[in-house]
Structure formats: structure tokens, C-alpha cells
């Protein structure tokens, strides 16, 4: 708690700074793509949001495992805190993807493996959050959502490969790690994109810290009330 309070303003400032620089640079100081025109600038929101949607789930998986194995309470609360953030990142990725797909692919939605697996990821987030809010006893809820998160991860990965059986789909592969190969992402886009990525990561950490602090306080409040009723 004390460490997080001291760190919070710095992370907030850094997140705001890198998001501001990255997005403004991306939106106003990059050239238009010769084929896609200015819609290419959706990249700067779409790609970081999509990455964070997956990273948030991975973080939830790790914290859930820490809870199940070591029974560290803050860990369970951090997983709970990350879920709505992941849900929103998934939604952002889907919505910006639809807005980008409409002019480029001439369709809002296509049952493409990447798109479909994100929709399924959205369902996983919804189920996870619903299970947290449905169970009253906090320790039971933490245990059950932890189990769900572990099992869900396995099935999310399987769904990802299952829907690939339909066809290759419209969505291109990621070009971020293709530096030096053919068809790389242009440097003019690369630098602001990386800044945006850093901004999204910091923003995610910021939200998780804020929400974890909130959840810890809420639990302390419940404990205090219970003690007052007893005393």
C-alpha cells in the first residue's frame, strides 16, 4: 500500500506523458499510408489495446496461480482488479478493429480467427467478472475464479487454434517483431507505436494499482464493520 501510494503519481504522469506523446505523434505527425490513407492511424490504439487485452489475461493467470499456491490475498485482489481493465481493452480492440475494417475490408465484422478469438476472450472476461460478483464470501470467490481463470486459459488457447480451422482469414499477422524481414512496419510508424505501447502498459498498471487499492480498502472496511458489530 505505502509503496503503491508513492509510485502511483509517477506512473500516472508517465502513462499520461507517453500516451499523449505517442497518440499525438501517431495521429498528427505520421504520413498517411499510400494504400490505407489516414485510417492507418487507428493502429496506434488498436494494436496496443489488443496486446494489453491478452497481457491482462496472462497477468490474471499469474496472480490467480500465486493466490492458489501461496494464498497471498493482494494477489487475488489484483486479478480481480485487472479483469474489467482487460475487458475494456478487448472491447477497444474489437471496436477500433471494426472501424478500421469497414473502410479497408468493406465489412464491420468477419468471422476471422483473430477476430473470433477476441470475441471469445471477451466472453471469458464477462464470465470471470460475473463469477466474482456472484459469490459473496471473498475467499470462496477468489478460489473459484482462480480455478476458472486457469481452466479458461487452456480453453481460450484451444479456441484460438480451433477457429483457425475455418480459413486463414482477413486479419494480417503481427508485423511488430518483423524488423529486418520482408514487409516490415515502417520506422515512421514504429517509434510512436512503441511509445503508445509503453503508454498502454503504464496505463494498465495504473488502473490495476488504483483498483487493487480500492478493493483492499473495501475489504478493510468490511473487516472494521464486522469488528464493530462484535465489539
Amino acid at each position, binding site marked *: 500500500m505505502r509503496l503503491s501510494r508513492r509510485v502511483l503519481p509517477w506512473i500516472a504522469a508517465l502513462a499520461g506523458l507517453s500516451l499523449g506523446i505517442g497518440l499525438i505523434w501517431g495521429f498528427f505527425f505520421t504520413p498517411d499510408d499510400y494504400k490505407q490513407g489516414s485510417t492507418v492511424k487507428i493502429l496506434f490504439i488498436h494494436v496496443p489495446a489488443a496486446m494489453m487485452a491478452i497481457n491482462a489475461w496472462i497477468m490474471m493467470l499469474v496472480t490467480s496461480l500465486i493466490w492458489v499456491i501461496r494464498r497471498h490475498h493482494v494477489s487475488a485482489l489484483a486479478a480481480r482488479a485487472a479483469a474489467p481493465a482487460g475487458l475494456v481493452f478487448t472491447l477497444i480492440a474489437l471496436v477500433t478493429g471494426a472501424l478500421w475494417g469497414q473502410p479497408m475490408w468493406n465489412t464491420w465484422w468477419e468471422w476471422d480467427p483473430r477476430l473470433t478469438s477476441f470475441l471469445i476472450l471477451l466472453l471469458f472476461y464477462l464470465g470471470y467478472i460475473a*463469477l466474482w460478483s456472484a*459469490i459473496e464470501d471473498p475467499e*470462496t470467490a477468489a478460489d473459484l475464479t482462480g480455478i476458472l481463470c486457469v481452466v479458461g486459459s487452456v*480453453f481460450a488457447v484451444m479456441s484460438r487454434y*480451433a*477457429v483457425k480451422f475455418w480459413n486463414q482469414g482477413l486479419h494480417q499477422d503481427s508485423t511488430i517483431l518483423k524488423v529486418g524481414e520482408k514487409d516490415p512496419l515502417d520506422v515512421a510508424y514504429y517509434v510512436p507505436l512503441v511509445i503508445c505501447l509503453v503508454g498502454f502498459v503504464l496505463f494498465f498498471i495504473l488502473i490495476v494499482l488504483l483498483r487493487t487499492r480500492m478493493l483492499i480498502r473495501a475489504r478493510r472496511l468490511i473487516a472494521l464493520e464486522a469488528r464493530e458489530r462484535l465489539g
Partner: protein
Amino acid sequence: MIALLARDLSLAFRAGGGFGLGLAFFLLVVVLVPLGVGPDSAILAAIAPGVLWVGALLASLLSLDRIFALDHEDGSLDLLATAPLPLEGVVAIKALAHWLVTGLALTLAAPLLAVLLNLPAPGYPWLLLSLAVGTPALSVIGAFGASLTIGLRRGGLLLSLLVLPLYVPTLVFGAEVVRRGATGLAPATPLALLAAITAGSLALLPFAAAAAIRVNLR
């Protein structure tokens, strides 16, 4: 274990046990789709594999909450948890009973309903085979979902929200087997993957479900 299986089966077949309910629901889904899509037999033949699989999936979803909820209410789940039989075994037996009541019945009924949807003739053996291989996975995954929602007053809706995303790979591979079989392509690869999902969930999910039940009974 056999006594538990016999008990669950006789409970399911009695009035209000939900044996006929799943089948009737399956029939209704298959009847409603042509009414909504229109009676064009070429379109129906194209969508038949998917509709049959979705129908079977929804029908098996219908009776999931009965797997543990009733036993939890009357306390027999506590007895089962303290019985010498390991809780993982209890979960596996209950999933097996659920499969015998829904999955097996759906598998046997599916070819009849496939006639209604004008499924091409080469698809029939693959439909039977894919349902026979895939529905056990549905029952085990469902038992896992049911074990998560035991203690909840209105767990049914939450149960479907939790379980349906887990059903995705089974559904995709199962329908893919039938589609490939019906159109003359080789269905071996999705069938093998479907069998892998069933085997994997049969092996691992009873442990997860038993862990969830222990948490819920604590």
C-alpha cells in the same frame, strides 16, 4: 461408484428428472431453424452440421445445473464428499450419468433430426461419430461449470455464461467433422482433435471440478 451411477440414472429418468426435456429441446431447435431460415433445402443442407451441433450443445446445457445443485440442497453432496470414494471419482461418475442421459440420447436422436435438415447422406456416420466422441467433453466441461456455481441461488444463467466459451473448441471441431464428412472432404484431422479435447477434459477437469466443490463445501 456403480451404485452412485445407478442412483443418478434412476433419479434422471423419474418424473422431473430432465431426461425427455433435453431431447424435446433438441427437437424444437431443429424444427425452429427451418421455420426461421426458410425451407430452401440447399441452404438447410449447408447449415445442417452446425445447427445439429449447436442444438445438441444447448440441449446438454439445459440440464447441467441439476448435476450438483439438487445434491447440494439436500445435503447428499456433503455425504459424497466425506465418502471413501474420491471426489474426483464422484465428479466423473456424475458427468458420466449426465452424458448417458443427454449426450448419448442426443447422439442417437441426431440422425433422425438430420433428415429434417436434409443433411447429405455421407454426413450421417460422421454426425453419429462426432457426437459420440464430442458430447462426453460437453458433459465433463458442464460438470466443471456446475461445480463452480453450486452455492449460488440463481446459478443457471451464470453457469451458461461460464460454460459456453469453454464449449467453443468442441463445437468448432465437432461441426467441422460433420461438414467435412458431408461434403466429401477428409474429416480425420478435426475428429482427432475433437477426441483429444474429450480425452484431455476427461483426464483433467474432474480434478478442477473436485477442487471447486471442496471450496464450495468449506
